[in-house]
Structure formats: structure tokens, C-alpha cells
């Protein structure tokens, strides 16, 4: 597997927020996370603050994976990205202190784009990320296949209906109706399902 293009989202402390303990803790965890990833030899293409420009930066960088501290307030900004890019999902990995592997399995099984991984030992990070990415890709492939199958099924239905219509109108056999459809598709340079749909549309229109 080639090197992953990884973006890390790091909370930053704005002026006036220096004495907010939870923000300080977030920033510190973010720093440790970043060091851990670098020590594991990962290719961090950018380390971004969780500000209002995050969605644009991520759209521009097109990373393979986004990594964020699970306790960070950046999560809500990422949620916005997840919803805005619902149709082209990308794995978002979150690190938490929790050692609960069941949580991760449940998250993966449910097909969420968030994988919760325990611990931050340098030698464990890389394989864990690779597994997360592989699972994500496999799941995406299955989802793509499913939608592909669904649309093929829908196309088949349209073709069947058009064939039936031709058979009834022109008193021909199924084989002949199919050949007529295919002939029209070839001469008009259209997909079989498109020709079928046109026939059905005309039928609807003329009754």
C-alpha cells in the first residue's frame, strides 16, 4: 500500500482562550498525536486548525484520511464535512484514550466514517491505519457494487417493459423486439436502457 496522504486536524488556542483548561488539554493531545504519527513515519501532508476554512482546505488537499483527536471540538466541523460530502466519503480516524476494541468494531461494522483506535504507540499506528483504510475501501466497494446492481436492475426493468410494448404493438417475438431495440440503440449511439426509456416516454405521451 502506498503512503497514505494524511491530514491531521489540530485544535489551536485563540487569543483570549489561554486559560481554558479543556482547550489547552485538547491542544496538548493534538501535539502528542502529531508527534506520534510523525514517529510512525506517516506522510502528514498538512496539519490544519479546526477553523472555518477546514472544509475548503480538505477539499483542496483531497487526503486519503483525516485524523483527529476524539476529544477535540474540531469534531463538529468535521461532521459538517461528512454531511456535505455524503456521496464521496472518506475515512476519518479518531484517536481516543479508550482501549475498547469493541467500539471500533461496532463503528466499522456500522459503516461510519469514524474509526476509534486505542492507544498511540508508534509501532501500532501504521498497521492500524492501514486496516482502517482497507476496511473503508472494501466497504465503499460493496456500497458501489450495491448501487451499481440496483441501477442495473432498474435498467433491466425499463428494457423489459419496452420489449413488452414492442411485442404487443408490432406483434413480434421477444427476440425480434430485442433486436429492434438494439438496432435503434446502435444507430442512435445510445445505451439500450436509454432507448427503452424513450419508447416508454413516447408511449406515456401518446397513450
Amino acid at each position: 500500500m502506498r503512503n497514505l496522504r494524511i491530514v491531521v486536524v489540530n485544535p489551536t488556542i485563540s487569543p483570549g482562550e489561554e486559560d481554558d483548561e479543556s482547550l489547552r488539554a485538547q491542544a496538548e493531545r493534538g501535539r502528542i498525536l502529531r508527534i506520534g504519527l510523525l514517529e510512525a513515519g506517516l506522510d502528514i501532508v498538512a496539519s490544519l486548525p479546526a477553523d472555518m476554512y477546514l472544509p475548503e482546505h480538505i477539499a483542496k488537499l483531497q487526503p486519503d484520511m483525516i485524523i483527529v483527536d476524539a476529544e477535540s471540538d474540531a469534531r463538529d466541523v468535521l461532521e459538517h464535512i461528512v454531511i456535505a460530502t455524503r456521496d464521496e466519503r472518506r475515512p476519518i480516524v479518531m484517536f481516543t484514550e479508550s482501549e475498547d476494541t469493541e467500539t471500533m468494531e461496532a463503528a466499522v461494522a456500522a459503516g461510519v466514517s469514524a474509526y476509534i483506535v486505542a492507544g498511540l504507540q508508534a509501532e501500532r499506528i501504521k498497521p492500524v491505519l492501514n486496516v482502517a483504510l482497507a476496511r473503508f475501501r472494501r466497504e465503499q466497494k460493496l456500497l458501489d457494487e450495491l448501487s451499481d446492481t440496483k441501477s442495473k436492475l432498474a435498467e433491466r426493468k425499463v428494457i423489459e417493459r419496452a420489449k413488452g410494448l414492442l411485442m404487443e404493438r408490432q406483434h413480434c417475438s421477444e427476440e425480434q423486439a430485442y433486436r429492434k431495440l438494439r438496432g435503434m440503440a446502435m444507430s442512435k449511439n445510445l445505451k439500450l436502457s436509454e432507448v427503452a426509456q424513450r419508447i416508454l416516454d413516447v408511449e406515456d405521451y401518446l397513450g
Partner: protein
Amino acid sequence: MEFKELQGEKVDATRRTILHGAALVAGGSVLGLSTGGAWAAGSDKPEKEEIRIGFIPLTDCASVVMASVLGLDKKYGVKFVLSKEASWAGVRDKLANGDLDAAHVLYGLLYGVQMGVGGQKKDMAVLMGLNNNGQAITLSKKRSDKGAVDGPSLAKLMRGEQREYTFAQTFPTGTHAMWLYYWLAANGINPMKDAKVITVPPPQMVANMRVGNMDGFCVGEPWGHRAIMDGVGITATTTQDIWRDHPEKVLGCTLDFAKKYPNTCRAMMAAILEAGKWIDASLINKNRMAEVIADKSYVNTSKDAIDQRIMGRYQNGLGKTWDDPNYMKFYNDGAVNFPYLSDGMWFLTQHRRWGLLKEDPDYMAVAQSVNQIDLFKDAAAMTKTPLPKSPMRSSKLMDGTVWDGKNPKAYAASFKIKA
């Protein structure tokens, strides 16, 4: 413990708990006659006594915090362990995986999880409402200097001076997103087409506006008032002016948790109902509440940022000051807390309107599954909280549209401006 005296009764805490515990058992068996089930068998003891409850640092976490600070949790035989959370997405995930038992959470967020919008789909429960009202839409000082001080003048400015306008909310499926979208659309601005809408964590709103990153935002208090105090923004509208007594935060958990621990849920709800009643009871109590929640461990801001609007004293940052009768309420004789089915369905209609839901769900069935009306009735009985006549209510929103939950599909489709 130092706040025990806030309740106005100087009773020894331990004795108090035992006394109330005994009273509760007696009350429970009386209730059992009418509600049946586990109560009739006399086992109304909370199945799980320690409850981990998440909250986000906002004024409207007050009834949850005060239930714990005043020791009302112990009165009902449970112990709240409060957990300050950094993000709504974090609250959602921790509810789903059991790190949190329950949480102070955005109404629309729970419905988003129920429908699988964005992340993992999971059956959720709305146990009760935590507050009505008390959020605001702020416009930046730069825009107000150019005349945009309310909805119509903002629309005029946006038509006249065309560029990219940026507005922020707090969570894609949450309440603030829905108030912001509704308000913009009611003023003829399509939030999906005429503006850029982003998600920003509440405590970062004011800082971002200060450096000129955004034209406006919708968020819960104290951040609206804080923008005025800091001189970076003005209040263009309050959310109660969009929908008077609108539902806002709720007490939420997974449906599994509500089914597995009904007695724990009732005890938790009773404690919070009583805390809400306490807050709404007097200005002195509100003032004390503001003092408590301004602390670092809760909202982490100055008391001044909280207490003005809590008491209904509003200013818009342009010199206008008024007493708003529809300020943030935590109890209002139980009207705040009843989980109306029509309120739940409203969020679904808006999710549909803005394309978060691609198809119409069975609105009523979803609301009936999420909103735990039977559990609420028991908790209301424990605290003598009045109940409304119907699980539906009728509300007139700012554009004159009436929402009564009767025809959600038609309502969702009726808006001229939508995604």
C-alpha cells in the same frame, strides 16, 4: 455540598436523602397502581445508580448542572457524574457507544442520529425538554454599520452588495442550524444558495467574528450576549422571536438505555424537573444558578455574560434594551419539559426541507419511537409536574406559518425556499 442551603432548607444532607428515599418508595407504590408494570411490583429502585451525563458549556445546561449541585439527584436515589464535552459529535458518539448514559443535547441532533444522517444510525430517545428559548442570531458589527440590523435589512444589504456571505451554526442537524435557516429563508434568503453556511464550535464564534471571518451566527447563550459585550456583533433576532417557546436542548439517551433502565431514567428526569422548577422560581435562584454555571468546570465565562439574558434583560448592541417575557425557561409549569411529538416531527420536516433527509420518513412513527412520553408522565407524577392535554401542540412561527404536526409531509413540502 455548599449549595445545599440554596434549597432554603437547612436539613442534614444524609438524613434528607433517607427521608426523601422513603417518601419516594411510598410515592412509587401509589403511582404503581396507575402505571402498572415494574412499579406495581414495588421495584422502582433505579437499576443503575450512577449516571454519566454529558453536557456542552452553554447556559442551557443549567438544570442538569443544578440538579447535581443542589443534590436533587441523591434525593431521587441516583448520582449524576457530569462530563463536560468538547463537541456535539463527541456527545453523539459517546451516547452511541455507552461512554455517556445520557446528555444535554441538541433536539435535532438526536433525530439526525435516529435517521442516520451523517454518521452511525442508532435508535435514540428524547426523555424530556431541558429548555425553551434563549438562543440568538448575531450579525457582525461590520454588517450592522452598513445597515444590516435585522432580517429584512440584511436581505436588502445582500441584494445590494453582492459577495459571499458566511453564516455559522453549531452542528449540521442541530437546532441552531434550523433556526438560522428558517430565519434566513423567512427573509427571502436561501441559506443553501445565497450564502455559505459553516459549522463552528460555540466558544469560537465570537473570536471568529472579531477577526472578520463571518457575517453572522446562530448559537446558544451566553455567546450572543458575549458578542455584544465584546463589541463585535449585534443581536438581529432572538430565537424566541422566530418561534415563541421553541424546543431547544433535550435530555437524550439511546433507546436501549431508556428500555433497560426505566427507573434510572425516571429518577434522573425527576431530579432535573425539580432543578428546572427551582431555577424558574425566582430571580435570586437564577442569579445563583448563573454564579454556579459561570465556573470553569461548567460554562467558563463571566457571570455577567450569563445572568442578564437569563433574567430576560436583553439589549441588541445598538442601544435598544428590553425586557423579554420569553427568555430562556427551564420549567414553565412543565410546558418546557413535555416531549411533544409535534416538536420532534418539526425537526424531521426541516431536515427534509434542507435535503438532509432525501425522502419523507413516517414522521409520526419516528416521533413516537423517539419521544418517551410514558416515561415522562411517570417522572411528572413524581414531581407533581402538570401535563398538557395533548402530545401535540400548535405553534405559529415568525412567517405566520402554523405548525401543529397534523400533516408533516405537506408542511415539509410547503416552503417556497428549500434545498
